[in-house]
């Protein structure tokens, strides 16, 4: 059997990308191995741990159970694409201040979910933050610092509005 392939064109962090991929290649592998964007981490590879969470067409998505072929025509934004994002800047500073990471493996996914919470749920309290964060697993720092960092950014933004 000849190896099945698919021709895809998509936007990755604002850049037009075209490639020939095996349809079985999931988006995270495509970004890491074809585009050498290794900021997206893979944990469980079946949608549970949240480490690979990134943005597809403006919303957080799991890149391990979304296939690159299915992203033909899509706009993908991985952690590398948020360098100058205002909310992500605030979150990075808050993660540092609150000791919200230790090994850092879950952090790219945590930041994606944190940014979604900040933008989608500006009035989220701690219970809501924890519910929304339940799809991202951290196995070393724990969640105290991460929740505190998100609360800090939410509080700062509430003050500013």
């Amino acid at each position, binding site marked *: 059997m000849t190896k099945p392939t698919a021709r895809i064109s998509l936007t990755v962090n604002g850049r037009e990308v075209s490639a020939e991929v095996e*349809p*079985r290649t999931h988006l995270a592998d495509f970004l890491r191995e074809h585009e050498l964007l290794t900021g997206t981490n893979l944990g469980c*590879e*079946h*949608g549970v741990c*949240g480490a690979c969470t990134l943005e597809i067409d403006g919303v957080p998505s799991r890149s391990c*159970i*979304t296939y690159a072929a299915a992203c033909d025509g899509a706009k993908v934004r991985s952690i590398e694409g948020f360098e100058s994002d205002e909310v992500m800047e605030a979150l990075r500073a808050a993660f540092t201040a609150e000791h919200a990471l230790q090994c850092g493996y879950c952090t790219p996914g945590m930041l994606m*979910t944190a940014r979604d919470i900040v933008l989608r749920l500006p009035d989220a309290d701690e219970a809501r933050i*924890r519910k929304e964060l339940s799809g991202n697993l951290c196995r070393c720092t724990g969640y105290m610092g991460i929740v505190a960092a998100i609360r800090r950014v939410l509080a700062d933004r509430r003050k500013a509005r």
Partner: protein
Amino acid sequence: MKAVQFEYARPKDVAEAVKLLAEGGDGAKCAAGTQSLGPMLNLRVVQPTMLVDLRHIEELKAVTDAPDAVTYGACTTHAAVEDGRVPDPTGGFLREIASNIAYRPIRNRGTMGGSLVHADPAADWPSTMLLLGATMIAAGPAGRREIPVESFFSSIFETALKPGELLVGIRVPKRGAKARRAYWKFCRKTGEFPQAIGAALLDPDKGESRAVIGATLSTPILLSNAKALLAKPTDEALGAAADEAGFADDPYNRRLHAVALRRAIERLSA
């Protein structure tokens, strides 16, 4: 943790999808959000030769609001329901269900139709649609047909869809303003698949009582003693319901499902 090799096809409409499924035979598999299929592919639990990606078919994304029912295209995402971007004929019940499915990134891509055809008895849409008395609309080589939800789930991970058929829509009937619906699930961790589901519906205008136990080892079960249960959820009636759902020989699950159902029934009048 990598899927087997498969071809990828992206049909523009339902007719083309049906054609691709016919050509692909047993190896062809419909895909939408791949939030259930993706894990199964990566774990090689499923090994298709072709994925037919339904996400770009406009008809499957459309939602129509008629006087007697709302019909959801099969590719309506959980997040669209959660955010109220589509009509909800149940006064917020569907929104509540959607907002508690897995996690937001899953809800952004996962679809109502995908969850229903996957037919995991512990998923939320199967029990919900069984409770609401929805109608499944399928398309296949022989045209379209409607399948009442009561006969849609045939076994664990099995539906009444025939080879070559796909689910195009889900029609949820409207009920009077007095109708009430409630749902309860036990999850060991927020967002995880529930260990037990109980759901109840009371429609005084139609004199209809419905009750469902989900997260079974077969299909969600529409209980035969719903009227008595909703009138008075005694331990005996709840136990009989759990027995009917297949837990007669499993004291832990019998209790867990009975309590989930009791809490759903209690929420009806809360």
